[in-house]
């Protein structure tokens, strides 16, 4: 049975796929060939599935919130919590299907072309993508964006572990620049069924960031902290994101230095903006708005695209926080800066590492020469 999938066999072109499913079912009986004869029980599958678990609270809350926001817009009251969730689940499920079918399809095919095992990296990216897009995004757009991000963001560099930019954010960036009408403004953040329009008077579905007038939902600290506001599916609930952050920090997959750096940078610029009178938003509220929390916890900390060195992680995190809030303060056209801040810092993270390692090495040589 196995032979037809081996090199020279009839179904060799399915080799990577079969291998992926096989190693998904069980840890293979592969033994070490050289070097260390024993190995730690950890592998990338387990590390990456933990990231998915960490993002699960945000995803589940996001699904409920999709239903809840729809209910608010339609003026419904007294709807059961599960009904809200079911509405949101049915809205988000197609996003997941598209994300995984398109992304994994490309991933499997490229792994086969490279003759490698399928890497688990897309497991995580595919889980994040539906959480950072508006829920009503047309599915074909999502498919195109996913294909772009996976092919040009990842596969052409050699697959998982080789990419420069976070593939999930690249998907969002592609959508943002290609289809801006679907990605910003006040219409896109709440799900509607075909033919539905909002019934509530003077209703606006803008995220609190883009809000000029009053809204029908709260924009206070607790509303934003719990996440009962419109926004991308998974980004609204800071408390659900914090749950994920604890898991990521405990297992050491995400770096606390990046998270702290980003928060510190945001507070700094937010504080300066408030003191200088550029904005009247209290500086701590900046942490709750928009995609800042989700970006800080799940996107900026991606170990592949972030800085490798410990000192570099501080710089990288700080700059992400500062850039994000700077965009928010000075760009009235587009109120959310997290995505572009992270992508920009992804681009610069090798440079930061280069400087940090260079400084470390020259400092060390000087010390040795003096000794």
């Amino acid at each position, binding site marked *: 049975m196995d032979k037809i999938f081996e090199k020279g066999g009839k179904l060799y072109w399915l080799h990577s796929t079969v291998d992926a499913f096989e190693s998904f079912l069980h*840890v*293979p009986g592969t033994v070490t060939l050289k070097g260390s004869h024993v190995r730690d029980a950890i592998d990338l599958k387990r590390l990456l599935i933990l990231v998915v678990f960490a993002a699960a609270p945000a995803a589940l809350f996001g699904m409920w919130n999709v239903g809840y926001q729809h209910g608010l817009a339609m003026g419904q009251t007294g709807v059961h919590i599960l009904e809200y969730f079911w509405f949101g689940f049915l809205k988000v499920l197609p996003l997941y299907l598209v994300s995984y079918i398109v992304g994994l399809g490309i991933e499997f095919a490229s792994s086969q072309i490279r003759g490698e095992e399928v890497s688990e990296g897309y497991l995580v990216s595919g889980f994040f993508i539906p959480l950072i897009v508006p829920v009503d995004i047309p599915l074909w757009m999502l498919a195109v964006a996913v294909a772009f991000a996976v092919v040009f963001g990842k596969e052409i560099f050699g697959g998982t572990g080789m990419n420069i930019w976070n593939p999930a954010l690249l998907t969002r960036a592609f959508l943002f620049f290609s289809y801006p009408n679907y990605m910003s403004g006040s219409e896109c953040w709440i799900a509607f069924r075909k033919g539905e329009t909002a019934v509530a008077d003077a209703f606006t579905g803008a995220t609190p960031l883009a809000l000029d007038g009053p809204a029908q939902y709260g924009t206070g600290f607790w509303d934003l902290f719990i996440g009962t506001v419109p926004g991308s599916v998974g980004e609204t609930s800071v408390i659900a994101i914090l749950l994920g952050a604890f898991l990521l920090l405990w297992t050491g997959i995400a770096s606390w230095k990046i998270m702290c750096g980003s928060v510190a940078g945001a507070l700094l610029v937010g504080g300066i903006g408030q003191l200088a009178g550029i904005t009247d938003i209290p500086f701590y509220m900046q942490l709750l708005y928009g995609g800042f929390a989700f970006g800080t916890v799940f996107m900026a900390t991606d170990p592949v695209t972030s800085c490798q060195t410990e000192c570099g992680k501080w710089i990288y995190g700080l700059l992400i926080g500062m850039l994000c809030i700077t965009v928010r303060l000075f760009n009235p056209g587009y109120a959310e800066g997290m995505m572009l801040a992270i992508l920009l810092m992804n681009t610069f993270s090798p440079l930061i590492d280069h400087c940090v390692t260079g400084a470390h090495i020259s400092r060390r040589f000087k010390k040795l020469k003096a000794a």
Partner: protein
Amino acid sequence: MSNNIVLKKGLDIPVSGCADLVVSKSMQPSVVAVEPGGIKGLLPRLLVKEGDRVLCGSPVIADKQNPGILLTAPASGTVKEIVRGEKRKLLAVLIQVDDRQEYVQFDTSDVKTALMQSGLWPLLVQRPYGVLADPAAAPKGIFVSAFHTSPLAADTEFTLGGEVQSIQKGIDALATIAPVHVSLDGSRKDSAFSRLTGCTLHSFRGKHPAGNVGVQISHISPIMKGETVWTVSLAGLAAIGKLFATGRCNLRRKVAVGGPAALCPSYVEALPGTPMKSFVAFWGNTEEQIRIISGDILSGAAVGKDGYLGRDDDQVTIIREGVDKELLGWIRPIRFRQFSTDHSYFSWLMPWRKYDMDTNLHGGPRPFLMNDNYYSKVLPMDIYPVFLAKACLAGDIEKMEKFGIYEVLPEDLAVCEFVDPSKNYIQDIIAKGIDLMLKEMA
């Protein structure tokens, strides 16, 4: 004691099967092997033919580039067979051992000549690159680690604690070439080796690889470009001492035999080149697939049942081959029988536990994905392991120099390889990097 160094990073791998501190057997094999493999930089030229008589200490193999450097017979007897591999590569010279041992008596008036003639010179390893020491080189120091931290390693206080006088003789001899540095186990107060004189004593305390001489050098006197140092194992130093005390070559040593698949783990007395068949009592007639390693589980050589004890090894480890598939293994919340340093498992809750580890890779090979810190947290050296490995993969000489290729041998990064979730062969990557350096710098 001049230097007390405490290393915080590192990892003691909790594998079961530690050898009891008792010598269960004194090996008297009928055949011993002289293997030129494993000595980097030695181009072997055969000096004997089948049927020749050799004494303990008689030359068997010489180095082509430096004909003064010899490999000698560890026991007296008759050359039984010359084993060759592909392209007639010399693999081993097998010697049928006599019942009564006769020794070549060496003149020990000149240290270097005595070491070369007696065949003990290859015990000296030259860094950078871990090659056969060049007799013309002027090393800035000779470094000795007086303890092991590697998993299931021989306890040097037990194996060599009684040979302090020989070790002192060895230090006295080597000190005529370069200053000798000996690193002691800082966690032991009553070390037999703390009375050594004529050398600089250092004390290291920490988890593995704190006992690796490479790690110790990087804290005592890091190797800069253009510098060389020599290292020698403690057992090798004792053999050198015996040469200068008696004029004879005597490599007999206590060897720890252990591992999860070993029956009655204990010590034996054996010569380098002893066939693994002599160790058969330690695995009995098991039906399981086992791997027999001359050395430790992190960087020893899998020699198999037909192999021989390595030239400078004082440890044999026997572990099961991990060929079993484990259903949904990677996603189970608790895998009680597996050890992991990662917090996604629960081994950290039971720091006292020892594990029956096997050779399973526990995953598939992937590109490096985790940060440098994931690896450097177990490496007590001032280098960036992932940056170094990537420089080696890219073959970028300048970056390899920058990231510390002069300071490491593959064994120093073995713990990084152990914890790697991407299952890369980091030691092999470093070894290839070193080969490239040797080629380019020659």
